[in-house]
């Protein structure tokens, strides 16, 4: 069978597993009405305000850095399969690429992005 069809099969397997589990649980699990159950569980204390609020910026900085390096992986993966064919020429040009990216990491490091205060 075609690989893309099989990929769809694997995707469907996930949907089937979740939907099937939910259906079985809905069929055999008990249900009782209790107003208290719907409250968020924060160790028994009444919830204060919403949790959809501004969050620490440090997490987002890591996400931005991650984005940069993730794009690097996408560029490097095709090259990594043909290292032998491209030889030294390809290696030197990729070395420049990796060097620039390392400079980016060094810059972020120097700027204190990686510091958790």
């Amino acid at each position: 069978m075609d690989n893309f069809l099989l990929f769809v099969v694997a995707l469907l397997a996930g949907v089937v597993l979740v939907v099937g589990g939910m259906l079985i649980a809905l069929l055999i699990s008990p249900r009782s009405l209790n107003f208290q159950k719907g409250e968020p569980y924060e160790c028994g204390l009444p919830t204060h305000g919403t949790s959809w609020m501004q969050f620490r910026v440090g997490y987002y900085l890591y996400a931005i850095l991650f984005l940069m390096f993730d794009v690097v992986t996408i560029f490097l993966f095709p090259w990594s399969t043909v290292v032998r064919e491209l030889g030294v020429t390809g290696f030197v040009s990729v070395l420049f690429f990796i060097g620039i990216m390392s400079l980016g990491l060094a810059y972020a490091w120097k700027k204190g992005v990686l510091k958790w205060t």
Partner: protein
Amino acid sequence: MNYKQPLELTGLIANLDAFFREHLSPFWASVVEGLLILLVIVALYAVLALILIYVERKITGFFQSRLGPNRVGKYGSIQSIADMIKILIKEIIHIKRADLFLYYVAPFFVIGSSLMAFGAIPFGKGLQAVDFKMGVLYLIAVSSIGVLGVLLAGWSSNNKYSMLGAMRSGAQTISYELSAAFSLMTVVVLAGTMQLSEIVEGQRYVWNIFNGHIPALIAFLIYLTSGHAETNRGPFDLPEAEGELTAGYHTEYSGIQFGFYYLAEYLNMFIVAAIATTVFLGGWMPIQVHGWDTFNQVMWYIPSYVWFFGKTALLIFLSLWVRWSFPRLRIDILLNLEWKVLLPINLFNIVMMVVIVLAGWTLTDLFPKLFGLA
């Protein structure tokens, strides 16, 4: 040398395929085969999760000088089945203040991503459902969808602990994904292909971890570390640090919905071990020594799936060992380890691997006679 492999399943699969093609039209044959594959994947997924949960609890018990589960069945062997039934008959609670749509969608992402990765693992000779040409990239892409589910779960629950857990998990998973990707790239440089079946085939004479010696060994260790961190376990289990965050991102989930996260966590552990086996430890290839024909034949008698699950079990045991040996890290130490230690090492490691490949210093290039390649 062609060795006999009497216990392989390739013959059975070919016969089934021929049987369906003979009795059904091509379209319906494909449909039936697709359904069969779907069934096998789901069943294997569930069964593996049950076995892993039992094994983990038992081994954890021994690590902590206690017996672990020992009431249900002989040596507690059907404990996880009892747990599964119990989790199924628990009520699914409707949270009042949550974003209900995202709340119910989140488990699909988590389970879906781990099942898509699961389908691409070569369990044995011919036992691989999805075999893309860019298999390694596919695995990385697919397994990074999981973190989306975790973030959605934490955000939609409208619970502060869930939110904290999800944010920690997000930062940690995406950071360590980089290391995992770069260390897999190191092996792709060595193997020269991204297709998983070809990577396994290329390790017929010598495994990648030996063939690439120093850089491959470093990449292997980094992959194990970052894979372990990606599954949110062991010393890296900040997202669900039970002492501070109750249960992290799945605090608000009950019954089977919690079960999905539990299932995905265990299966992700398996998937990480399986990828490490496939890429570094020869996948389903047996141990081979050039010249020892009798030994090689005996090794080939052991079916490929036994080799695969044996190696994977070894790595899973290692991960459990790590989990119970180290205390939990703090988030800044955790992120520093990735960004200031593993990532620079990894970038250097790739360059080193390229030099070794281009200069012809791999083991197969240096000693082709040793492996019967000359």
